[in-house]
């Protein structure tokens, strides 16, 4: 199996820089997900690994061997495209066999491998059909099959599930994860769907505007976002953020948000009156009194039931916030909520100017 290393990789389109020198080490057998908003350079990064885009500067290595100048076909990577890129004139069997035929593998080997792979993917009954005669999920599987038959060192996925409906996406997500467990091939997966990123990834790389904002396991990113961007991107709904000012008194550190006062954890190197942003996850907020936490008054706008939970859309000092609360089978009691309690140790404090977290957790891995 193979590791992939990106060092100081940049991409220019003419004078326009779309990837700003990124560093990333992907370990052998790891499943890494690149996630970020549209246009942040995820696909470009992936395509540079595949060899479909030239690398403007920096190096990409597979197994410590620099591949900048290696032709795509010799990189031994396989890519699954968003629109599947199936050949409409070829039957499923030939679509899956395409890469092997191109490499002029022996016929019986092709036959055997394609049948094995279609068995894994449940495509055996469809081998004689053309892509137009398949459902979206089946096409997606054929696209995966094309990548798998080649036994590549690295799998690259560019938003492979975004053309599927929500239910099928969940199902295929699980299938991809199972497949990765079974094959153990190093994988780089691009998506802009953070749920997909959280569920699939060994490690997530959050990108924004051509930069890496943070690299970490899904739980590291969830619990210890390095900055406001990551906090606002990971989680659904994402972390609530309020602007406020720091005050310290005998009881500890507080942030004043309008008239409310939010108790903060211990932080070093901060000043009284410093402008900060307080972050708290919707699922960490309590609407029931918790011992010696100050009550924070809110004004409630709307309750959205999801089933066992509900989303409460509210505001503190005109700054919007979302609370995730248990319904216990009924939302009437949630409509009367007027205060919340924020557990001090789960609160994140960000510098208002730089957006970086101030009370970073020592185990959080933060990109340079």
């Amino acid at each position, binding site marked *: 199996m193979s590791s992939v290393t990106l060092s100081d990789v940049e991409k220019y389109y003419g004078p326009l820089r779309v990837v700003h020198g990124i560093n990333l080490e992907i370990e052998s057998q790891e499943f890494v997900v690149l996630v970020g908003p549209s246009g942040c350079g995820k696909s470009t990064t992936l395509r540079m690994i*595949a*060899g*479909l885009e030239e690398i403007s500067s920096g190096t990409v290595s597979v197994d410590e061997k620099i591949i900048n100048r290696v032709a*795509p*076909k*010799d990189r031994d*990577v*396989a*890519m699954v*495209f*968003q*629109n599947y*890129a199936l*050949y*409409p*004139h*070829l039957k499923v069997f030939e679509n899956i066999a*395409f*890469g092997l035929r*191109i*490499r002029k593998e022996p016929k019986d080997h092709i036959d055997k491998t394609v049948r094995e792979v279609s068995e894994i993917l449940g495509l055996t009954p469809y081998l004689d059909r053309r892509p137009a005669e398949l459902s979206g999920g089946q096409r997606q599987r054929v696209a995966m099959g*094309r990548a798998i038959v*080649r036994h590549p060192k690295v799998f690259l996925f560019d938003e492979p599930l975004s053309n599927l409906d929500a239910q099928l996406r969940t199902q295929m997500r699980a299938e991809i994860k199972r497949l990765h467990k079974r094959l153990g091939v190093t994988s780089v997966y691009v998506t802009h769907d953070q749920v997909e990123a959280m569920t699939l990834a060994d490690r997530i790389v959050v990108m924004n505007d051509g930069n890496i904002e943070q690299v970490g396991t899904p739980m590291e990113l969830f619990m210890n976002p390095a900055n406001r961007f990551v906090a606002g991107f990971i989680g659904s709904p994402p972390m609530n953020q309020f602007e406020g000012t720091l005050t310290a008194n005998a009881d500890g550190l507080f942030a004043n948000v309008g008239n409310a006062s939010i108790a903060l954890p211990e932080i070093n190197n901060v000043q009284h009156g410093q402008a900060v942003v307080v972050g708290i996850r919707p699922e960490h907020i309590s609407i029931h009194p918790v011992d010696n936490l100050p009550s924070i008054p809110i004004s409630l706008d709307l309750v959205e039931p999801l089933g066992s939970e509900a989303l409460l859309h509210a505001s503190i000092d005109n700054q919007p916030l979302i609370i995730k609360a248990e319904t216990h089978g009924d939302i009437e009691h949630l409509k009367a909520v007027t205060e919340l309690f924020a557990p001090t140790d789960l609160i994140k404090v960000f510098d208002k100017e730089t957006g970086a977290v101030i009370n970073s957790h020592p185990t959080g891995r933060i990109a340079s």
Partner: protein
Amino acid sequence: MIWLSDHVRNEWRLYLMLLPTIIWFIVFLYKPMYGLQIAFKDYSIFKGVAKSPWIGWEHFQSLFTNDQFLRAVSNTIKISALNLLFGFPAPIILALMFNEVLHAGYKRAAQTIVYLPHFISSVIIAGIVITAFSPSVGIVNTVLGWLGFDSVYFLTKPEWFRPIFVGTGIWQEAGFGSIVFLAAIAGVNPSLYESAVVDGASRWQMMWKITLPSILPTIIIMLIIRIGNIMEVSFELIILLYQPATYETADVVNTFVYRQGLQSGQYDFAAAAGLFNAVVAFVLVMVANTLSRRYSRTSLW
């Protein structure tokens, strides 16, 4: 009927828009068909189409015993076959070649140059060909002279007429004809190529395994149209290039009709020849279309 009149009353605006085309068809295509009946009549311009007496298949009988006509049919088929063999693939090959040109400016210049002959009148094209092959000043004979050959008066040699004619046709139309295939190539999903690149395909393999199969429906449609036009050898270019010395290989049905009808005044006989030509063409289109629909799910209608 009631339904139809209601329908027309409701949708009269659409029918109004259709009207000019229908009128054009009637005036220029259906009304002249009235005159086709002279193929079965002993036509006299003094009696007119309606009053001339019916004589049945007599003209057709004499057609098929007329050596010149039979020669013209055979020439038409031979020239068309050559045209199909060399002229049909030419624009496809040209389009595939343009597709491989990466430099945008060079590609545009080359395309303009090959499109150009299409926009030049056949009279000028013929003039260029005649000059080029002339025994005294022609470039071809000049080059042959440098190579130590005697000059040949190509356009008086029956064995040279078909190559020159087919070659001229390719020069004139291959570039313009490639546009339709280039458009088809442009419609191929680019990620098919990217995926093939990652799979290790060479440009040559991509051309054979992706580009050609993807434009196959277009190729088939163009082939059907082409087969339908087999009897329609480009008539004015033949008139401009042939001469009595080359009738033997150059005279086709259309030029035969032209000479019999307009030059010898045998309108009824010429009409019979023209009608024969049209019926054969009609059958060819029908057959080609049916075969194509059956075997490739692509058809004109």
